[in-house]
């Protein structure tokens, strides 16, 4: 996989210049960090380019790093070129209070449910999504459970004495 990193990086840098924030190997995986406004254009380019042909969206998910001030939230895209068996990962980061990303459903229909899941757990709004509502959790959950500040334990339990748990 290491040999494909310079190939893809060169093409992306030529096409998008400064919008490609970084290109690196993370363990054995090529990872590209892209500016949020250009992420859909980059995916579309990777899809359409006759040499790259990343035409399968393996996964799309959110991520939360509360210590990265100004870039707390992120969306991660896993793409797959099935002909050459190339796999890459795209990332884009943004602030918690500005959690809006353009939708990928214009390129991949399968992004529909993935984006709903990401919205459900991280509260990230996908601009232009046709049906952005909760998919796995109950509608009246009142929060986004994968954010680090969300209390994991069920808040309705009355039988747990905090003294017994040392808190």
């Amino acid at each position, binding site marked *: 996989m290491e040999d494909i990193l310079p190939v893809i990086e060169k093409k992306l840098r030529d096409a998008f210049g400064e919008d490609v924030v970084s290109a690196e190997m993370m363990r054995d995986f090529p990872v590209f960090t892209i500016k949020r406004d250009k992420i859909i254009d980059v995916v579309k380019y990777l899809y359409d380019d006759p040499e790259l042909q990343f035409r399968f969206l393996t996964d799309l998910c959110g991520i939360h790093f509360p210590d990265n001030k100004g870039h707390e939230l992120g969306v991660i895209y896993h793409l797959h070129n099935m002909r050459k068996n190339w796999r890459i990962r795209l990332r884009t980061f943004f602030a918690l209070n500005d959690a809006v990303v353009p939708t990928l459903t214009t390129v991949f229909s399968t992004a529909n449910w993935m984006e709903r899941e990401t919205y459900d757990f991280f509260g990230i709004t996908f601009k232009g999504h046709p049906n952005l509502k909760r998919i*796995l*959790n*109950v509608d009246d*959950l009142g*929060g986004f*459970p994968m954010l680090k500040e*969300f*209390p*994991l*334990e*069920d*808040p*309705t*339990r009355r039988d747990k004495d905090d003294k017994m748990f040392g808190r």
Partner: protein
Amino acid sequence: MGCRVKNPFIPHCMNTIIKDSNIEVVGAPAGIEGPGFFATSLDKVVGMARKNSLWPLPFATSCCGIEFMATMAAHYDMGRFGAERLSFSPRQADLLMVMGTIAKKMAPILRQVYTQMAEPRWVLSMGACASSGGIFDTYSVLQGIDRVIPVDVYVPGCPPRPEQVLDGILRIQDLVQNESIRRRKTPEYKAMLAQYGIE
């Protein structure tokens, strides 16, 4: 019809079976017996009939359901207690057996299944998850099905052994046998259902 064959391994009629085997059949309830008549209370007869012909509705969502399958199968054989006829329609079922983790999203469905059952109905909660949420003390899991429906018998364990499930069935049978046929019409019972918001 007389029984001519004495070989106990080839029983030719019910008399032979009952006389020569150790199978316990359900005895008559307490009552007054005389030549040609037998008198007892309706409660006892109805209780006996209901007790020995429970139709369970298995609501199995996870590993406890697998253990329940073993309970139903030949080795443990819940049919010995008259409960071998599983009903997959809530309308025909007497006993709702909830086995496994109930997610909060599943709670309204469980409640709907319960309300679709006809009275009299009983509920057995099998395993730690159904009874209390178990190890899943988390935002997505219902912390015990008694948050949404009334429960008659809790079977602890993670998962419980089939013997424990059978014991739970026997405890349900005790409740069924001793229940007054008027109980479901009492204001106490209606008030209890109202606590759960069930008509």
